[in-house]
């Protein structure tokens, strides 16, 4: 079964998730006396079907929905698009 998610929600989820992990890594590196490697940029490259969907109100921008393919399904004839999100450490 494929899953749909808006682009904004996907970014929120990914950044929030990575934020916790990276914050924990940085905190741990401060405790150690040896130099530690640190995450700098994170690039996420996802295959997805992209659709601009209708909204009930024209005042709101139509949501950009990404449908992520399921690993359990055989892909149909059409090719998937790709979404590449690069996240940086502040």
């Amino acid at each position, binding site marked *: 079964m*494929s899953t*749909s998610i*808006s*682009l*904004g*929600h996907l*970014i*929120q989820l990914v*950044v*929030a998730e*990575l*934020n*916790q992990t*990276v*914050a924990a890594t*940085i905190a741990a590196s401060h405790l150690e006396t040896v130099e530690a490697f640190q995450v700098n*940029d*994170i690039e996420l490259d996802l295959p997805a*079907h*992209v*659709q*601009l*969907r*209708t909204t009930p109100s024209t005042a709101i*921008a*139509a*949501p*950009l*929905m990404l*449908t992520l393919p399921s690993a359990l399904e055989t*892909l*149909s*004839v*059409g*090719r998937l*698009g*790709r*979404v*590449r*999100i*690069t*996240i*940086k*450490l*502040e």
Partner: protein
Amino acid sequence: MSDDSADENLEWELSDLVDAIAAEVDSAQDTLSLKSYSRGLSLSLKKLSLTVEVKARRTGDGKLLFRTVNPDETSATVLKLEFDQVLQSQLMEVRKSFEGAAIADETAIAAATVDDPFADLSDQERRSLEILGIRSIDDLNRYPKSPQIIAEISRKTGIEASQIHRWFSK
């Protein structure tokens, strides 16, 4: 993907897609900024790239419309979009000014919310103004206030030059 979502798959102009992506990114950044008060934030979006297979067509009135292919379709047209982070200095050049009175009373807030100078325009006129980047009086005031500019805006939008002149005077 269900047939319902295929039905909802809109045709769009390139600007619609860019607007939608910008709105999604803004919404995500706003939420993350808010969240940073409680959780701290050490990550932010640096770059976004989108590669989509689309079908393109030109309408009778000269618009170029795209639609992303549904899962069961294919197309030889591929659209690639890349968004980079805008530097603060670049943003300052185009940023709208929302500064007004330091303390807004209820009347001022109501006026700013309700007073839409373009309320009487048709959708077509409003859209042709938006194509020129004019969504508010502030946007209009970025244009030089010359008779030639007023005439040109009038010609491109179909709005009376006298009306545009009145907006400039606001």
